């Protein structure tokens, strides 16, 4: 994870520099009458300093990098299983992005039904037909709950004329 940590700290440094540069172009006012740019200016400097701090400690010997002097013992969350299936994260991200693009043209019922069926499969249920059936049932329940009962104006897309 060290490359990831260095990469993220470097990214935050870049974000901090861009943020600070934009703050410098805002009216700062005076201390007595602070303008809209003063607070972002301070935050930008703080972000740059902390990102640099994170970067520097990644290059220091491991012990110091992990626990800076005086920090309390880390609070351990429940031990996560060792095995990780990173592919699922990519699949789920692609699925969510796909849903956002499909929501308006296809409409909520069709988009969410396909979304749920694929999500059920990603989470380990392999049979397509039962997955589609489960997705259809959940879609029907969510349609009644959100669209009919709570009146959320979700896009209906190609179903606009049928359901709208």
């Amino acid at each position, binding site marked *: 994870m060290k490359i990831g940590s260095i990469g993220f700290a470097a990214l935050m440094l870049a974000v901090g520099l861009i943020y600070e540069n934009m703050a410098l172009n805002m009216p700062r006012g005076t201390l007595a009458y602070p303008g809209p740019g003063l607070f972002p200016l301070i*935050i930008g400097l703080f972000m740059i300093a902390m990102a640099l701090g*994170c970067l520097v400690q990644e290059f220091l010997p491991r012990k110091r990098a992990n626990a800076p002097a005086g920090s309390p013992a880390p609070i351990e969350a429940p031990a996560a299983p060792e095995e990780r299936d990173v592919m699922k*994260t990519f699949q789920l991200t692609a699925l*969510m992005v796909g849903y956002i693009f499909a929501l308006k043209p296809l409409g909520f019922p069709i988009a969410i039904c396909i979304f749920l069926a694929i999500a*059920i499969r990603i*989470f380990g249920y392999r049979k397509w037909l039962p997955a589609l059936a489960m997705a259809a049932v959940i879609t029907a329940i*969510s349609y009644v709950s959100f669209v009919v009962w709570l009146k959320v104006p979700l896009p209906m897309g190609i179903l606009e004329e049928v359901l709208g």
Partner: protein
Amino acid sequence: MDLFSGLIHGFSVALTPMNLLFGFLGAVIGTIVGILPGLGPLGAMALLLSLTYGFDPTAGMILFAGIYFGAMYGGSTTSILLNIPGEAASVITVIEGYQMARRGRAGAALAVAAVGSFVAGTISLIGLSFLAPTLATAALKFGPAEYLAVALVGLVIMSRLTGGNLFKSLLMISLGLALGTVGMETVAGYMRYTFHQPLLAQGIDFLPVAMGLFGISEVLVTAEQTMGKVQLQKVRFRELWPTLVEWKRSFWPMIRGSFIGFFVGLIPGPSPVISTMVSYSVERKLDKHGEFGKGAIEGVAGPEAANNASVGAAYVPLMALGIPFTPAMAVVMAVLLIHGINPGPLLMTEKPDLFWGVIASMYIGNFMLLVFNLPLVGVFANIIRTPLYLLMPIVLLLCMVGVYSVNNSMLDIWLMVGFGLLGYFLRRLKYDLAPLVLALVLGPMMERSFREAMMISRGDLSVFINRPISATILAVGAVALIAPLLIAWIKPLFARKSDKTA
């Protein structure tokens, strides 16, 4: 309204059928999310935040209080029966609770955990009832300098207590503060960091951030993990009653745990988790039976009381000062903000229905939790068998629909997915999300306080140390930041000295 009449009024609000229903729903949802690993009270509250738009704010607050308390009850169930903590505040309970279950005392452990939670919940609510109005009255004297000091010191203490890396925590604070500056600035109407997107003029809404960081990222992390089949320890109803000796041994740990939990709960940071650790180490030091590690009932009673007590205490700074000290309280605060209510010292006088109604509903919710948690423990424990392939897609559905329902905005869905991915990477890189969320919530208030303080003092920065309350608060923050560094620096010097003398 004094304390007594306030509580009477609160009970008249909390006992209406609708509010009772929301309290009950909250308690049930809280118990379920407490049991389910991978979905904590914070995630559940973030998911349901969008739904509270349609509710009365008091009902929304009652629902969330039920969820928070319920999760503390539910979390112990799987810790004891399965050796799996349902949420972070029940990690410590695993140590002694599961050992008790292996010795056939699972029922006693569950009963002591439930009764301890009830006792602690009640003690912390008494504390909340007394302390919140007192603090609110004192806070009426607070000016912008004091508010800035409290928020700043809260963030500093939180960054010290989350247990992770200090630089990483401070970097998260700076990111949260920076995100808080996006949108139209309130004094001059200047557009900041909107990149000519009109939808960003109102700033980055808290809802997509919270749902992304705590809902979507939770699903992504859970998706990667593989969970084996769970084996439940069977508990018979007649085994639920602890023996007289077990009651006696649990009594003082419960009381101690309650007070530890309440005082730790007042400090910014992951207080339910820290309070269980403090309580466990205290009980371990006081142990007379030599049973710690082998199923000591004190190690269940104390920490389970402590985590519940810290929940009541967490409401004190929010209700009295309008400043959340934990991410869960930031979500609770969002319930109020979306209804145009600003929590703070005036909440008690301006919205007595809400202030006292919520406190009274917590008493009722706590009682409900005790009554249905004990006999239904077997039923609730079976919830853990819910397959992930059903649960997680439903969580995603709630996120996708919930975030859209508030502003009917596609941008909010994009933001939620973006923050979900950010949260996922931050978790993988061992960054703590809590400072980011709190800084995002507190940032606009901090900027407003800073600018007001500067204008009142005509640009004199010493205003922060010339005012006694502000100076004291800042001194506490400085000590919190510097003291651990000094101790770590001095300790080896003393150790070397004593080595030489030896």
